[in-house]
């Protein structure tokens, strides 16, 4: 591809691509992010390609392989453009039929999405409740763009915002625009992005400045950033070049976690293509702006999401946080001023410039503008990524978009903000989702994980899970974090093991305060949140474990007993599944479980087809 040497060169390329235009044939869009691929999207692509070739449908239908669209529950799914027909759970058997129908401009009626509440099929994606209630300004771009092609990105208005920025004489215009948009950091803390950039731009000039994209999405249960990195890597690069113009930065780094191989592949390709085209490197588009981006791989440490730890990791050291001030904006990588923003924050930048700060600010609430992507997972019917305007209620997200619980058990809470966040009970689902409301409720916005919990989820177990995670991920620098999280985990183990006392519960609360107040970085300061929020809203569950030695959700192993009820047909499936030989009984008669041998692994329960295995 020819290198672009001036703004006119880029304008000419835009015009050339626009003139080439999209041929007006039905396009079958196949989301093939990591989860799409894990669900079999690659095979769907292969079958569809074959169908187009063998039935000579070239010119009548074509394929576009993209990143994730968000409705993970229904993957592998496909979308037929231009009309927007949506097909859920496509199989290699149905794939060819969909291609043929699309080529005829029809829909394969029997394969359409069926609305579970009405039992009626819905043809168009934008009429399916999961999609229709969202505002998908970032995620919808994933549908249009082939992540491995910079041309595809430019065709879809990509790098046009950069052009706008470079046309302005005054670089400060960028900072002012981002400030005016009200954009707050999507990584969780919610600091004003424009303000951060202004501080960076105001640093004494000299040896260079760094911009960092924090793509170390370490919160378990959150994968919004992965979908943007995989599906639209150029939006990050463009955001960073725009940021470089506004702040006078010379070097960018994308710190991406090693657990995301596909994201790394797409980012690497995107950076190379941008460099080749002259959108990264020396003297970008002849404007005198020089900025390049390196990829740095994380190596699996949750604490590296913390800014100062991340900087050390980039420097090739152990990712231990350090005391602030000096803040990274003053002294970051190699002692140089550094601004770190999260993936979703960067992806918002081209949108803000593209539509203008006033339009961006119209979406959302006064203190929290724009949209936010959440990963809606756990015990929810419609699992997936949802992008909503800030200020929408939790109820709307969970019942309106998410479709309510996945099983028979009712929803009792949602966990937001990962290990630093907390659980919000169903009674408070009328809360608007914005930085301040969630924090007032004892949780945090965080990066956007929303893990839905139902009556079969034990809140003591959840708190124990997070504390186990945090004690493993504590870097160990602060004594109170290192030891405090260990002791808190031990107390939670005692409670879930039926050995807890009321005094321990008091100690747990006391320790929470100590860890919160006496640790240096965000990991330690927020570590007690999962405990404090479950204690605040679900204290009765703790008390039930302590006083009655009972786990109401039937999760904590030491407090439950497996038994077989009258539904048993004597099919022996459980006998075969049991690793302990704990189940006995004649064929075709009711079996029994030997409690002394049973290790409560649940193998019998998952093997049973008659709901005959009970847990109490």
């Amino acid at each position, binding site marked *: 591809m020819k290198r672009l040497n001036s703004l006119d060169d880029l304008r000419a390329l835009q015009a050339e691509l626009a003139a080439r235009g999209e041929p007006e044939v039905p396009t079958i869009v196949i989301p093939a992010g990591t989860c799409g691929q894990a669900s079999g999207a690659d095979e769907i692509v292969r079958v569809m390609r074959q169908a187009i070739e063998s039935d000579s449908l070239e010119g009548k239908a074509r394929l576009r392989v993209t990143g994730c669209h968000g409705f993970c529950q229904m993957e592998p799914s496909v979308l037929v453009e231009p009309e927007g027909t949506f097909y859920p759970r496509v199989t290699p058997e149905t794939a060819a039929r969909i291609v043929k129908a699309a080529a005829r401009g029809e829909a394969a009626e029997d394969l359409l999405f069926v609305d579970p509440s009405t039992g009626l099929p819905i043809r168009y994606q934008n009429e399916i409740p999961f999609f229709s209630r969202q505002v998908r300004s970032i995620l919808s771009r994933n549908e249009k763009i082939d992540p491995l092609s910079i041309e595809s990105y430019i065709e879809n208005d990509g790098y046009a915002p950069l052009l706008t920025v470079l046309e302005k004489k005054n670089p400060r215009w960028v900072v002012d625009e981002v400030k005016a948009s009200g954009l707050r950091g999507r990584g969780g803390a919610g600091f004003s992005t424009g303000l951060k950039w202004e501080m960076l731009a105001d640093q004494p000039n000299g040896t260079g400045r760094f911009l960092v994209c924090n793509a170390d999405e370490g919160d378990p249960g959150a994968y919004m950033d992965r979908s943007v990195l995989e599906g639209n890597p150029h939006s990050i690069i463009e955001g960073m070049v725009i940021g470089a113009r506004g702040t006078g930065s010379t070097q960018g780094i994308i710190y991406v976690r090693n657990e995301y191989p596909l994201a790394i592949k797409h980012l690497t390709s995107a950076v190379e293509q941008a460099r080749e085209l002259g959108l990264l490197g020396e003297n970008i588009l002849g404007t005198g702006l020089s900025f390049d981006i390196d990829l740095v*791989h994380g190596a699996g440490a949750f604490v590296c999401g913390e800014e100062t730890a991340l900087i050390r990791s980039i420097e090739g050291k152990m990712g231990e946080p350090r005391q602030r001030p000096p803040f990274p904006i003053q002294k970051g990588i190699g002692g140089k001023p550094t601004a770190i923003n999260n993936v979703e924050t960067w992806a918002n930048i081209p949108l803000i410039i593209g539509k203008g700060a006033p339009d961006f600010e119209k979406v959302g609430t006064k203190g929290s503008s724009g949209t936010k992507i959440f990963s809606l997972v756990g015990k929810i019917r419609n699992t997936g990524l949802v992008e909503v305007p800030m200020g929408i209620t939790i109820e709307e997200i969970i019942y309106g978009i998410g479709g309510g619980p996945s099983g028979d058990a009712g929803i009792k809470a949602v966990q937001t903000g990962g290990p630093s966040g907390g659980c919000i009970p169903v009674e408070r689902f009328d809360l608007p989702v914005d930085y301040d409301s969630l924090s007032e409720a004892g949780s945090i916005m965080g990066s956007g994980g929303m893990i839905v919990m139902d009556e079969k989820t034990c809140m003591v177990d959840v708190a124990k*899970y997070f504390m186990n995670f945090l004690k493993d991920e504590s870097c160990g620098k602060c004594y109170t974090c290192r030891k405090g999280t260990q002791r808190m985990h031990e107390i939670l183990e005692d409670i879930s093991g039926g050995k807890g006392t009321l005094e321990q519960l008091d100690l747990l609360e006391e320790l929470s305060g100590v860890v919160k107040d006496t640790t240096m970085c965000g990991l330690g300061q927020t570590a007690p949140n999962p405990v404090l929020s479950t204690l605040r809203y679900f204290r009765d569950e703790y008390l039930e474990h302590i006083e009655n030695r009972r786990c109401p959700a039937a999760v904590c192993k030491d407090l439950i007993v497996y038994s077989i009820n009258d539904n048993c047909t004597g099919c022996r499936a459980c006998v075969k599944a049991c690793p302990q030989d704990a189940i006995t009984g004649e064929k075709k008669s009711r079996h029994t479980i030997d409690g002394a041998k049973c290790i409560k*692994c649940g193998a019998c329960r998952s093997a049973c087809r008659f709901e005959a295995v009970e847990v109490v």
Partner: protein
Amino acid sequence: MIQKTKHGLSQTNGSLIAMLEEIQAEDGYLSEEALRSVAERTGRSLVDVYGVATFYRSFSLKPRGRHLICACLGTACHVRGAPGIVEELERCLGVKAGETTSDGEFTLETVNCLGACALGPIIVVDGRYFSNVDQAGVKDIVAKLHAGSEQVKETLVS
């Protein structure tokens, strides 16, 4: 890992993690010999190199098996029964998480989150994802691994 260090970053510092990742990709783990040679080449003390190698979760100082089985323990997988999946894997393989079978065939590891939360519980075998795994599924996958990994590949898209 610094792929192309162009500006500002010190070569020896910035590339240490990258060097370790490369060695691990080749050898499967980081041997004492490898750590000593990295220390020599970068001019950093052995304790520094050892510190980095043990700080990050993705490095292993013990040899790993021919097949790597990795179970996700993210929150979404957890509430959908991941602990039971890990226990089943431990029973089927006869090792604890983090260990390798005595014949050097399998290493069982856990990971905090793979970011494919809609499909949980998830296990990854040699880079291949298995979604919505239950205990019976674990038995099946392990049995097929014993019979040869080719069969596992075939079951993936089903």
